[in-house]
């Protein structure tokens, strides 16, 4: 039940991100839209890994080597989420850098000003 609600929140967050990036005019808000979409996808990744009644897959006090298989949550999605988060960060950093350069180029942040090459 828990992972289903977390999954739905992640997906909703992605939709909010998509709405943000497509309707906002200001480039910074578009980048925020992308960040939301990224975070939403990371939440979905983690939600997919949840096992009913499981805890973090760290073998220490409560989770002993013996009962680890029964108690632990699926470690693979969390491991991949770390990588995905780093990639998300990288992409947002590049986007913000481009936003700064675009602002310097045309002294405006509205996306409609940057529609030069067409047809």
């Amino acid at each position, binding site marked *: 039940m828990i992972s289903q609600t977390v999954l739905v929140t992640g997906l909703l967050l992605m939709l909010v991100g998509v709405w943000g990036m497509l309707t906002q005019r*200001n480039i*910074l*808000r578009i980048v925020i839209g992308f960040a939301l979409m990224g975070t939403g996808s990371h939440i979905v990744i983690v939600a997919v890994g949840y096992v009913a009644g499981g805890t973090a897959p760290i073998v220490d006090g409560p989770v002993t080597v013996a009962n680890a298989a029964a108690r632990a949550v699926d470690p693979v999605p969390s491991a991949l989420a770390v990588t995905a988060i780093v990639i998300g960060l990288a992409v947002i950093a590049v986007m913000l850098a481009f936003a700064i350069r675009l602002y310097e180029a045309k002294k*405006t*942040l509205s996306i409609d000003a940057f529609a030069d090459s067409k047809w």
Partner: protein
Amino acid sequence: MTELIGSIVILIGAVFLFSAGLGMFRMPDAFTRIQAGTKATTLGNTLVLIGIALYFPSWSLKLLIIAYFVFMTNPISSHALARAAYGLQGRCGGGVRLETAGTPDERSGP
């Protein structure tokens, strides 16, 4: 018995945290939001930490360090936020348009 008191304290903490969230949503302008966000959350966190300390007395030292950390960072960060908002808007005061702190090139004024 102590668990009961602990859970009540945690509940109160949670209420304060919820009020912080509500405040953030309802408050008209940047400054009012900042103060709502800080005060309520700091108090809420401390109460939750105290509640946990009641549950697990052995953790109290760690919880104390966490409380100290919260006390240190929360106010300073809201102070910095307020200064930044002040720097941006030139003056603080009521009647500021409801919109959140605009983007760098949108000067929101009375």
